[in-house]
């Protein structure tokens, strides 16, 4: 399945919480909560958001065979 590149703005919006989304994939839930704490503390610096947006994209890409990840990608980028 096609997963949009890390530069797609939705990844950053997921990291900052601008996009509210509850993933089915457990790892994504834990990852998002952790990076939102960090992004919040650091004052949402663009480079930090980019780093975590890339991390989130990698997490889903590496687990793209999971049904829950495929459902999440379909919902996020519908």
């Amino acid at each position, binding site marked *: 399945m096609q997963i949009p590149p890390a530069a797609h703005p939705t990844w950053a919006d997921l990291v900052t919480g601008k996009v509210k989304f509850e993933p089915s994939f457990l*790892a994504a839930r*834990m990852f998002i909560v952790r990076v939102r704490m960090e992004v919040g503390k650091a004052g949402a610096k663009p480079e930090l958001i980019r780093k975590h947006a890339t991390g989130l994209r990698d997490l889903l890409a590496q687990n793209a*065979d999971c*049904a829950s990840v495929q459902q999440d990608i379909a919902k996020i980028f519908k």
Partner: protein
Amino acid sequence: MSQQLYEVKDVEALIRRGDGLLLAGDESLLRRLPRGKWIAGTIPYFMTEAGGLVNRKHIFVNELPEGLACVGIRRYGEEDIARVYSDLPARGLGIMIAPATSKVHLSFALNAPSYEKFAIRPLIGWISGVHLSELGKATPRVFDGTSGEALDQQAVVMHISVPAGKVAELGILNIFEEGEGPAFTFPANGFSATDVEIGGRKRNLAQFIQETSLDLRLPLVADYCGAKINVSFQAVDQAKGEVQFYAPVFAGVPYHHAKPVADYVTEFDSNLPKRIDQIAFSCNCILNYLHSGLEGRKTGGIVGPITFGEIAYQLLNQTMAYLTIESSQA
């Protein structure tokens, strides 16, 4: 794939067959096993097909499902546990056991979500313990089957390969939900707390617990993007005004005291995962076993060790963690 209690001699035969094994049991039994592709943790409590029980004469054996293979066993201490995710094999997963209250347990609990490549591949497992009558007297241990050594300050991780066409996924079953009381927010990450914000007001947590007679059998629950993550109460020191937890609280995460649960098994059964036949490994918490009276009761046919902490990517409390192996959707 078998998940059940075995006599030591039968476990020896399984080890000699050369398959990867995940073991749990009394330390004296585990010390008798030959070297091989196995890891183990000490614990005498189990969920079995006959229900929850205490058993110090048998070893709980979790064989790997067909097609999965042990491709290595690693040990980690406090100094290198941060590599645990980076080291996991491509197209594979890790099963980890760490001794309760060891430095590696505490470090993993506090820091795992910040490790490089956190959650990039599945990491599931448990925290080993002791019989509750021996708390403070006996030492929780893990075993590296390749050498047969018992370890009390290192974690063991079995690296497992997953065949093409199959995919490993982790899940949790937590019957606790956030109650309607005030939110608790903590000023720092840690296993203990004194002053916290409760409903937006700075309060001493120990004092609040005393004043409100808070039921400490119920955990604090945080909403992790839809996943309910617990932190269980361990002890309250009113003299010091300090509360200790079995897992760390994280600064900035709002927690709520859990709603009471009428009957754990009823709630558990009504929330069972759809495909329990695909569960390759699971474990459940000693606090659920104790507070919910699981001895002699069955939890939907799900079996495994009862633990002093569960790992599904990060440390969990009062939760069942499980691994499923399903057909790949690629």
